[in-house]
């Protein structure tokens, strides 16, 4: 069971709703994935354009909607977007993301922390997309965030857990859930993330851009379940050869021999 801000979820898989062929396909993928947390964006309405009613189908599926602040470049913009989202969606839950740099879409740590502090004070349940920087994650935790969402690799890159070493430290040090977001390219990446001890993963591109998103969503569902089961069953730690099976220095051997 995944617990965030006191709310429990059966699924440890979060889904991003973008990049799908259609709203219908997105909804089908959501269902196939078993997810209970879906991120959505807030955009300015195009006057005259047909309105996609995303609300009801997702509500029927019983998922927790997670509006995001994608598009915001500064803390101020993110806070504004959050207030709009809260009003539009009627939830305090929020995925905070501020990525002003368009090539790699990496999160801005300074603006993210600033926004997180303000939004936590405003009563939002903040899930920040952030750098895989252990100290930064502790600062977000201390600001009051409900979870941290460090990136495995740049958004859309499907490169897997490139930041593994840092993610392991984040997982070790966190007192709130760690949700690995961005870069997860294959179901095995998701399983690995959970085996490492992450509480959940967020997947978007890997599902939406595959040839058969609904089946891929199912694959991810199984992969995440496998990871969760492995975590719960006491995964044996893989041994790494210590670098110094070095012999004891001669001077020490002598001193050691003298001990009783």
């Amino acid at each position, binding site marked *: 069971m995944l617990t965030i801000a006191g709310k429990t979820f059966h699924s440890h898989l979060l889904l991003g709703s973008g990049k799908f062929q259609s709203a219908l396909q997105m909804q089908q993928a959501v269902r196939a994935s078993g997810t209970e947390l879906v991120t959505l964006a807030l955009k300015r309405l195009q006057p005259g354009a047909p309105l996609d009613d995303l609300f009801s189908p997702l509500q029927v599926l019983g998922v927790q909607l997670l509006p995001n602040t994608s598009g915001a470049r500064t803390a101020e913009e993110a806070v504004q977007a959050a207030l709009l989202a809260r009003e539009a969606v009627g939830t305090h839950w929020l995925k905070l993301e501020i990525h002003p740099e368009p090539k790699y879409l990496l999160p801005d740590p300074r603006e993210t922390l600033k926004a997180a502090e303000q939004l*936590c004070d405003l009563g939002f349940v903040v899930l920040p997309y952030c750098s895989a920087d252990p*100290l930064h994650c*502790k600062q977000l*935790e*201390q*600001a*009051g965030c409900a979870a941290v969402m460090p990136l495995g690799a740049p958004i859309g890159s499907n490169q897997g857990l490139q930041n593994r070493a840092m993610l392991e430290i984040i997982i070790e*040090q966190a*007192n709130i859930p760690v949700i690995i977001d961005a870069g997860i390219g294959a179901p095995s990446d998701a399983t690995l993330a959970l085996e490492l001890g992450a509480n959940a993963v967020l997947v978007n591109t890997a599902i939406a851009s595959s040839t058969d998103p609904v089946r891929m969503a199912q694959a991810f569902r199984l992969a995440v379940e496998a990871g969760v089961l492995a975590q719960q069953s006491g995964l044996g*730690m*893989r*041994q*790494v*050869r*210590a*670098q*110094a*099976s*070095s*012999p*004891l*220095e001669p*001077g*020490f*051997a002598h*001193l*050691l021999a*003298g*001990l*009783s």
Partner: protein
Amino acid sequence: MPVPIANFQLTQQQFDTLQAQSCLPDQAAVQRALTAAKPSFADLQALLSPAAGEFLPELLARATQLKRQRSGRTLSLFAPLYLSNLCSNECSYCGFSRSVAVKRRILTVAEALQETTAIQSLGISQILLVTGEHQRKAGVDYLLEVTQALRPQVARLMLESQPLDARDYQQLRVAGIDAVMLYQETYDPQSYARHHTFGAKADMTNRLAAPSRVAQAGITQLGMGVLLGLSDWRTDVLLLAQHLRYLQQHWYQLAFSVALPRLKPCASQSTQQSGVSDREYLQLLCALKIFAPEISLSISTRDSPALRDLLLSSIACSASAGSKTQPGGYAVSPQSLAQFSIDDERSPQEIAAMLRVNGVQPVWQDWHPVLGRYPA
């Protein structure tokens, strides 16, 4: 919004269960523990077990390598400055226990300054202020006065006193205390109760919670430890490690040092012994270092010169030298009764010379307040 603080707690049953397990790990478990990338508590248990006693060279090699990777071939030197032997606790093992008939003394600020000058003439600029535990006569106001007077003179100021509250620690931090030492003595509730029969220290729950208050006050260097011999040493060290991990998890900025003295005779208790041999002592220090390389091991002058030569050249990060463990011992009143007998009486310069011979650089100071940490 701050994370709610829970306190580290333990029960007699937890202690007894761990003690029952302590001799179980076999050679294979020890081998796994020696090569684990991130040793677990089970690995630490294995390294503390009797089976690991057969692997002392391997433990020492691994612990030494980890120490050097983290802080190089260096050893930081400090000295204790006993401010007061007034104590309101009754602790069965201590020469300053309240019922012991010893001349009680508390240094004036001027005397403390005199002692500081004497310590500095030995070359030492990192000082550990030590008091017995007397809230009324050696309380936070006195400690603040001494801290303020001594702070401009020394490179590092540490404090070992009775447990205070978070507000007191905050004031002390602002006044210039770099580190606070708080020793649990033992994590065995029954043994704790048997040895601490009177005074505030008899309250084990309060003692267990004290390090959290230091952390809350924003002090980032914490010294912890047990007195080996009060209970089963393997279990005490294991629980110390659990306590450390608990504190690390709640306050990620904390840096730890650990002191693990062995029970020794003192004037009022001439026959007490720890039952921990030199080899076992080395084993447990190495085990702790392998489990948590980021924790700094501190060695006092209670240990013999031969053992200190080995420890200070291998796994230790800091050590006291030239120590006097009575108030006024350096200059003001050198004849009075010491808290415990010193075994290694070498001066700081002699220790430094020994270190250099062994390829270790003595370090006299780390960060100087002149660099802007405290108000002038």
